[in-house]
């Protein structure tokens, strides 16, 4: 028995069979002329009329090998190549070249593909399923790109909806449904932020604690609807008195807190408190009846505290508010108006309060 020799080369294969196997093959003769090309490559180059033309007239070798041309074509085999079409759409091609036949007569054989630019190439050249070898993952790549686009669109839409829901939930969690003002939770968050800001940059703030006077009487005699109407009205008055950088919060039934950012002269705060009281004391018509309320206000200043302590300020403003109530309602007391009590960390509550007679 004689052992059959292991073949080292293929017998002849027809060019049309090669074209079916590798629809984007390209065969260059030793003189650099195009000898044959696969049907898909011919399609994107504008037909089979290229045969006989110089390779360099239709293709550019891009990337690292561009300098080897138009020199020796035999430099190309064995390396990954990038080609581009000289005419027509900027379709990038990539592939590999091998030397074929005897050195003087065979030339170079390329197998090419579109690589990552496949979707663009399909669009530009109107390619179909039949233009690709079944071994290529071209269909899968196109499929994946379309599926991915659809999935991404869904994800983007979902994210937008979730973000909107989150924003709405946050706004709901931080605001008072009746008046639309900030609620206690929002106030606490802002107070902590203001205290930290004071410590970091020395920007001071003031806290005004406001409690409506005679509100219970309105509620009891004119009903809850009238009470709600008064609360909404009071919220508007406070909002008008506040600047854009301030925060107005409703912290209880008829209790409000005003966070005033920046250093404000205690006398100005006093004037502000009195102005608010005066506005609240104006009769509020509601369904034929007239509601009458007033307000008591206690104000604490952050510069009287070292370090700034929002919680203690709130407690002290509350104490000042009840002092104002005890001294006859419809008053505003600004703690530290006559100078802070210097004791470290101690509230200024020991300074005799300056009571104001409400205007109007």
């Amino acid at each position: 028995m004689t052992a059959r020799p292991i073949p080292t080369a293929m017998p002849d294969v027809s060019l049309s069979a090669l074209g079916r196997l590798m629809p984007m093959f390209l065969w260059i003769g030793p003189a650099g002329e195009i000898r044959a090309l696969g049907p898909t490559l011919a399609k994107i180059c504008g037909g089979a009329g290229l045969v006989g033309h110089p390779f360099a007239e239709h293709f550019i070798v891009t990337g690292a090998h561009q300098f080897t041309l138009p020199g020796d074509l035999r430099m190309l085999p064995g390396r990954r190549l990038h080609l581009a079409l000289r005419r027509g759409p900027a379709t990038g091609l990539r592939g590999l070249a091998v030397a074929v036949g005897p050195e003087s007569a065979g030339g170079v054989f390329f197998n090419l593909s579109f690589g990552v630019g496949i979707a663009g190439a399909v669009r530009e050249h109107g390619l179909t399923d039949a233009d690709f070898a079944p071994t290529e993952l071209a269909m899968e790549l196109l499929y994946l790109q379309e599926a991915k686009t659809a999935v991404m669109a869904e994800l983007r839409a979902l994210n937008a909806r979730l973000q909107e829901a989150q924003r709405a939930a946050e706004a709901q969690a931080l605001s008072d449904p009746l008046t639309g003002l900030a609620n206690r939770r929002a106030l606490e968050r802002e107070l902590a932020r203001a205290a930290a800001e004071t410590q970091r940059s020395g920007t001071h703030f003031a806290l005004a604690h406001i409690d409506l006077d005679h509100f219970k009487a309105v509620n009891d005699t004119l009903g809850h609807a009238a009470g709600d109407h008064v609360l909404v009205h009071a919220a508007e008055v406070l909002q008008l008195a506040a600047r854009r950088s301030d925060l107005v919060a409703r912290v209880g039934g008829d209790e409000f807190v005003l966070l005033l950012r920046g250093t404000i002269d205690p006398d100005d705060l006093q004037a502000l408190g009195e102005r608010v009281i005066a506005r609240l004391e104006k009769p509020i018509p509601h369904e034929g009846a007239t509601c009458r309320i007033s307000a008591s206000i206690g104000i604490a200043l952050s510069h009287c505290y070292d370090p700034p302590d929002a919680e203690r300020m709130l407690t002290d403003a509350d104490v000042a508010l009840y002092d104002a109530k005890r001294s006859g309602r419809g008053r505003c007391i600004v703690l530290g108006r006559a100078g802070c009590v210097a004791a470290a960390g101690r509230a200024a509550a020991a300074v005799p309060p300056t009571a104001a007679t409400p205007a109007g």
Partner: protein
Amino acid sequence: MHGLINRSIQRFLRDTYGPELWQTVAEAAAVPAAGFEAMLQYDDALTAAMLRVAADRLGKPQEALLEDLGTYLVTLEPLRRLLRFGGVDYADFLMSLEELPARGRMALPELDLPQLALAAAAEGRLVLMVRAGVPGWGLVLSGLLRAMADDYGALALIELGAAADGQDRISVDLLDSRFASGRRFELAQPVAL
């Protein structure tokens, strides 16, 4: 069940029978108020409840509803395109069906599509075996295969046989692969204007 599937059912019911019917079904089946999210996962029982309620309200057997769902899916252009990537003609498409679950996973790894196996049967027929975690897939797929035959312009007879050992059995009699001209399909996605 994947949100994408639930949302397809939601769209099918709403587009085919109107928003009022969908609203009634959604309420009765306790579907989330805003409808299904395509990218979230839901309990299988919710899908079953939704289909049961819909069939009940429409006075239609659930089987018919599921087949119509399969037909409807092909009217969704992105989905039709993804299906058409399966093959150049209907015969080719049928051959690619076994790859469908893998293709689905390629797009969405958590998408649990039924396992499909194609076999040749007597007289040139093809038999598609459908193995799924939940019942009903065989019906949906028969509707879908019928609609895809139309899409390719092929003449095919599709019948759902009796289920055996947990598998649905769809028999496909491909009479003519190129019976009519079918709908256009270009590989490149139309550029949005």
